[in-house]
């Protein structure tokens, strides 16, 4: 009698061990099953750096051959005066460069899946330009460029998230 009950307890213990092992594998499988993030991380890093790098060197269409960088510098240097460069379409450098930046972001980050970003040009704590799409409160990749101007060092910051 005693031996039989001992056998039954042993059987129960084996079943419990098997179920525990099964549960352990299920949990392990669920934790390990995450999508590959290699490409996502690569794309974010490359995108932020390459967009800023290319954008700053881009020549404007009808603003006396000035580059985006030149237009940003002009915008910063004339932030307290009205001596901005007036482009061939009648817009001043600030409005003109903002149009270029927004056009580029519309055709890149927004077109590639509504990607959120935050673009800021500042001199010290004074904002010069700002173009944002839902901001970047969470995980992000940021790239900064520093441009010397007559009014101080201008920081161009692009966050892609």
């Amino acid at each position: 009698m005693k031996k039989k009950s001992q056998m039954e307890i042993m059987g129960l213990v084996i079943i419990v061990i098997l179920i525990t092992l099964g549960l352990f594998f299920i949990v392990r499988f669920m934790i390990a099953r995450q999508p590959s993030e290699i490409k996502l991380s690569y794309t974010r890093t490359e995108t932020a750096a390459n967009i800023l790098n290319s954008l700053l060197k881009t020549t404007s269409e009808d603003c006396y051959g000035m580059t985006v960088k030149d237009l940003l510098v002009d915008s910063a240097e004339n932030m307290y005066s009205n001596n901005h460069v007036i482009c061939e379409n009648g817009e001043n450098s600030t409005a003109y460069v903002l149009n270029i930046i927004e056009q580029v972001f519309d055709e890149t980050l927004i077109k590639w899946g509504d990607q959120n970003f935050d673009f800021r040009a500042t001199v010290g704590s004074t904002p010069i330009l700002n173009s944002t799409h839902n901001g970047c409160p969470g995980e992000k990749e940021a790239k900064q460029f520093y441009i010397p101007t007559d009014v101080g060092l201008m920081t161009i910051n692009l966050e892609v998230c």
Partner: protein
Amino acid sequence: MRKSQIGMSETIAILFIFFILLALGFIFYLRVYRASAETQYEKGVDLMSIEITQKASFLPELQCSKKNVVTDNCIDVLKLESASAIINENRENYYDLFFGSEIVVEEIYPIKKTWVLYNNTINDTSTIFTPVPILLYNATSNEHYFGILQIKYFPIK
């Protein structure tokens, strides 16, 4: 006789449950193994698409250079116009570099223009799209344009 029959039934029931548990465990193991293999495959495909992107970005046939100094992240438009025709005519020579993929250069500012650099599209497979923002240099007008190098990779299963 009756007691031994009950004993036999008990043993059979226990063995039945045991084998069911064993079968469930085996099925689960196979599923985990398959998922792990799929993850490895996805990683491999991702790495291959990045490799193709890097090769396309640094293709000597397209790179901007001044006095033999290469400018990073820049494509010479004049080289691009000639190279796109030559690469598409000699696609088999570039297969080892780009495999089954489509590489397109698109100018998005100031005007919109597209060049198909390499096209070896494979149907009935997934597509991995990698865009790379680049600078397009026009040596004739000495101007830089904003462009995108678009790489679509079609992995073969």
